[in-house]
């Protein structure tokens, strides 16, 4: 056999190889991306699978609520607050009413306060089940989402009984509630208290100790307590990092001091802890709902403040004073006292604050909403730095950024 030349002639030598270019990829996550659950854009710099840095662009559904509010009478601003955190609009509505009541110095009767607590806690449950079940969807478990949506529907039916609307509820009035709890509402709430725990337990069973879910969420998007405080985190996201700040406990409003509930906290501030804190908060909310419905005080459901509380319609037809007040309120003849109020409630995502300056007119001189999502969403690039894209999606999902609240 003749010698066969084995050296490959067609392979280029090292010097002829094109130089390997290392460059970062820019990835547009959003503005409309199914995984962002809302319209906001993230421009991510990617090194292969890893995120190097990110920058958010927000404001896609900015509707200038603060400007609009300067032309609206106080009672018409609830419709704006509805559209902030639309997953838990009753908290926004009632928080706003409490702010104005603080300005006006109106004392709301105990029964109305309890009904408000009841509705706000139901709203918290709807807020948290969406966040947690969507987190399940984002990790690949779609089923749980559908089951809990059924329960959200039941809460929406309770809203319908209480205020007539479902999503943008416009619930409550200045000085109380627009109507008393009907027997149907009470029956539906009691049914919900009975039927919700098995469903929530099922969701827990599906996710809490699920190997895949734990692997996907533990140590994903962590934030330390110190950084979380610096970034202005509040609500479940802050509590997941281990700080037990809850407006309901620290500055009780609407009779929260009468209720017994625990404030769950996490340890690592990662996605799993945020999930677990929200999960436990639903149990606590259910406890509060139960206490509120069992101890519902008798009495009027609105304050004796005829110049601010829109009178019941049947009185408007029969009663001279009610007709006059109805006309004056609707036509905007009612002036609020001048003053400056900051009132905070524990929203679904954290401290929802209303900073209201009144110059004595019928509309606010200046109204500023402290929106929790807006403030903590700025930490997002820091939280997902170095993680992969799929983990960044989970981090965003567990932060529960609501586009309406983000942009106001």
């Amino acid at each position, binding site marked *: 056999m003749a010698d066969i030349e084995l050296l490959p002639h067609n392979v280029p030598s090292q010097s002829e190889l094109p130089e390997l270019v290392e460059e970062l990829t820019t990835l547009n996550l959003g503005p409309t991306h199914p995984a962002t659950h809302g319209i906001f854009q993230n421009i991510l710099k990617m090194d292969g699978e890893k995120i190097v840095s990110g920058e958010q662009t927000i404001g896609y559904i900015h509707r200038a609520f603060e400007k609009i509010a300067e032309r609206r009478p106080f009672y018409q601003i609830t419709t704006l607050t509805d559209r902030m955190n639309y997953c838990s609009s009753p908290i926004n509505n009632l928080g706003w009413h409490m702010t104005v009541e603080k300005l006006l110095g109106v004392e709301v009767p105990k029964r109305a306060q309890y009904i408000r607590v009841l509705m706000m806690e139901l709203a918290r449950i709807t807020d948290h089940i969406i966040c947690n079940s969507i987190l399940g969807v984002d990790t690949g478990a779609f089923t749980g989402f559908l089951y809990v949506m059924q329960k959200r529907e039941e809460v929406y039916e309770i809203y319908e009984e209480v205020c007539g609307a479902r999503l943008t509820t416009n619930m409550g009035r200045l000085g109380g509630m627009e109507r008393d709890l009907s027997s149907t509402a009470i029956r539906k709430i009691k049914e919900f208290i009975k039927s919700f725990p098995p469903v929530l337990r099922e969701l827990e069973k599906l996710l809490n100790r699920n190997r895949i879910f734990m692997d996907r969420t533990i140590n994903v998007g962590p934030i330390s307590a110190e950084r979380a405080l610096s970034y*202005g985190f509040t609500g479940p996201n802050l509590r997941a990092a281990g700080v037990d700040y809850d407006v309901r406990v620290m*500055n009780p409003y609407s009779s929260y001091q009468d209720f017994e509930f625990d404030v769950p906290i996490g340890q690592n501030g990662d996605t799993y802890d945020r999930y677990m804190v929200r999960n436990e908060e639903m149990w606590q909310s259910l406890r509060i709902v139960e206490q509120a419905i069992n101890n519902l005080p008798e009495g009027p459901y609105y304050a004796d403040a005829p110049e601010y509380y829109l009178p019941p319609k049947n009185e408007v037809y029969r009663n001279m004073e009610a007709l006059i007040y109805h006309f004056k309120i609707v036509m905007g003849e009612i002036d609020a006292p001048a003053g400056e109020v900051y009132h905070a409630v524990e929203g679904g995502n954290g401290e929802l604050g209303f900073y209201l300056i009144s110059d004595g007119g019928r509309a606010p001189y200046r109204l500023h909403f*402290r929106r929790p999502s807006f403030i903590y969403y*700025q930490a997002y690039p820091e939280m997902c730095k170095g993680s992969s894209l799929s983990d960044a999606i989970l981090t965003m999902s567990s932060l529960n950024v609501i586009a309406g609240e983000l942009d106001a």
Partner: protein
Amino acid sequence: MLTNQEVAEGLLEKFGDQVFDFEEPYGLLTLSTTREEIIPLMEFLRDHKNYQVIFLTDITGVQYPDNTGKEYVVVYHMHSFVHNFRIRIKVALSAADIHIPTATGLFASANWMERETYDFFGILFDGHPNLKRILNIEEMDYFPMRKEYPLEDATREDKIDALFGR
């Protein structure tokens, strides 16, 4: 739990006449300071062990167009989780010189709050790492929350405000 009186006395002792206009509307301690003292004041409140105001709740702006020389007010809300008291600090700025130092060095959350205030009122936060519009489009050439921009078209004649008490 600290009372507002104690906090006010402590601040007066430290900052003297640089803190003024103490008020207590609806129980919330409110005071004013100058823009030179705002950052030292916030740092003092945050780091002093008696106060530990570790949380910046909110930054926003207010405009009073008729208040010559003090047309703009930047309002800071802070909260001490340790002692559970809130404090509101105001800094008045004149329209001719609408600068104030940034608080981003103290609180990371101040970043977007200041951008929002800039976006709405055009208040310039000196030293801010990325002071550009946040909610409105970048091409916008006015600051919408200022009172000189009415919400509705002023030339409309079909709506008579006087009839509606406005």
